[in-house]
């Protein structure tokens, strides 16, 4: 809790304020985290895949296939492209709208709403050091103790 910290430390923290660039970076990181597909990396990626995945296509019970199929690994290498590369390529393939980028929804015309970063209820106040929202003194205290300037994006 804030009250347990010495006044000097508290004052030092108070004077620190995140600049606009840092705030924008933090906001961008938060959105990126929300759009993550795989939150976890596979800790056994090297260990398991080659041996343990059953090769359905190779099984001789399979009635439908005559020729020998190519491995999953082959297609991984054959079509390997990152999302960023694909978006970049699209700029030449579909240079004029409509395309993937142009289809993105424009910003809303309705006013933005603000919610407490701690409890999620509507908030009326902004934390001075970091710009987060809070609804009450209690939530501000929690915010200062847990997040605010404590995690750096």
């Amino acid at each position, binding site marked *: 809790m804030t009250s347990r910290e010495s006044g000097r430390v508290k004052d030092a923290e108070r004077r620190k304020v995140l600049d606009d660039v840092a705030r924008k970076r933090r906001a961008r990181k938060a959105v990126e985290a929300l*759009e993550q597909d*795989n939150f976890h990396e596979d800790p056994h990626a090297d260990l398991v895949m080659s041996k343990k995945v059953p090769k359905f296509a190779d099984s001789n019970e*399979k009635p439908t296939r005559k020729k020998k199929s190519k491995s999953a690994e082959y*297609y*991984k290498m*054959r079509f390997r492209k990152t999302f960023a590369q*694909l978006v970049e390529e699209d700029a030449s393939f579909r240079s004029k709208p409509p395309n*993937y980028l142009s289809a993105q929804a424009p910003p809303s015309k309705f006013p933005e709403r603000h919610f407490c970063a*701690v409890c*999620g209820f509507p908030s009326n106040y902004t934390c001075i050091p970091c710009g987060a929202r809070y609804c009450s003194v209690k939530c501000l205290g929690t915010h200062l103790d847990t997040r605010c300037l404590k995690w750096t994006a």
Partner: protein
Amino acid sequence: MSETSCYILDNGAYTAKVGFSNSKSRIIPNCIMKAKSERRRPFIGSQLDECRDASGLFYILPFQKGFLVNWDTQKTVWDFIFSKECCPVNFNDTPLIITEPLFNFASIQEAMTEIFFEEYECQSLLRINATDLAEYNYRRTHKNDCTVVVDSGYSFTYIVPYINGKKYKDAIIRIDVGGKVLTNHLKEILSYRQLNVMDETYVINQVKEDSCFVSKDFFADMEIAKKKGPENAIVKDYVLPDYTSLRRGYLRDIVPPEEDLEQQTLRLNNERFSIPELLFHPSDVGIQQMGIPEAIMHSINSCPEEHTENLLANIVLYGGNTLFPGFRDRVYNDVRSLALDHFDVNIELPDNPITYAWEGGKYIFRDPEFYSFCMTKEEYEEEGKPLAFERFDI
């Protein structure tokens, strides 16, 4: 040439909907999963049913940001789907309808064409957007000229207007909020407020499905959620699965501490409706885009004006997020308040919003023109991939 049935694969980023046109569809997780309890065994697609303990389950997905990029994963899942273990098929004598995302990237389209003609040896292939199948399904029963298809899935939500059966591409809108953002946000806020569940995507996705609803009056529900005691009709506890006596969690009323059954629970209050709210206000979490009703209006207003009335009267919703209780009514209320009074607004939520596009595939197969929509292996061998770009309007 005409076959008695075709194989339909609605290849979503989260689930694949698969089956023959003369039977029912199956819903298969389109991913490989690994469990903490059985570290050395991957679960492919519906093999997840064999997993006894799904805590700490994680996904290896073929799709990233809504596009197919991990081909090794996808090939493994497809091999599973086409095998005896799932839904076996012989593409030599069965045409294939497979769905792709709108504005799918060119090299992914080429890869799709190549893999289905060369690896899976398809004789007849139709690559198509899932929204096209949904629109076909809707037009079949409504005999209408114009439709707005709203596909709210795992990676994003698409608003696609159709005029006389054709996509009006200039007015297509993508909102970068889907089921994934909702689950990630729920994970994040629960982990901060109560219990670290960052590694429990699978369970928290179920919490979301079992607990969340779309509010009819957002700020009124916020006031209710602030109340203490019986006046708060929103606050509930979610009993988490322990995988010995309970395989799937459930929502229950709060019990007094003395009646506590030593179950591990999560307290859900404003989370229950502020999560689906992101579909209506993406800016609540800093995604600066319109929500669904505003985007529907924006899309319709980007179409030629003479179709406005027709489009507003034929809006169809499908995809996993449309299953939230209250979803349809909220879209209706919001669109109604944004549209001019003298227009009718009609919003349809089909009985099974998950397989609605897949069902459309059944009917498109019966279209007398079906084979003219397809590309054959012979055509592929003679003219190659460029023909696929002409034939398929992805």
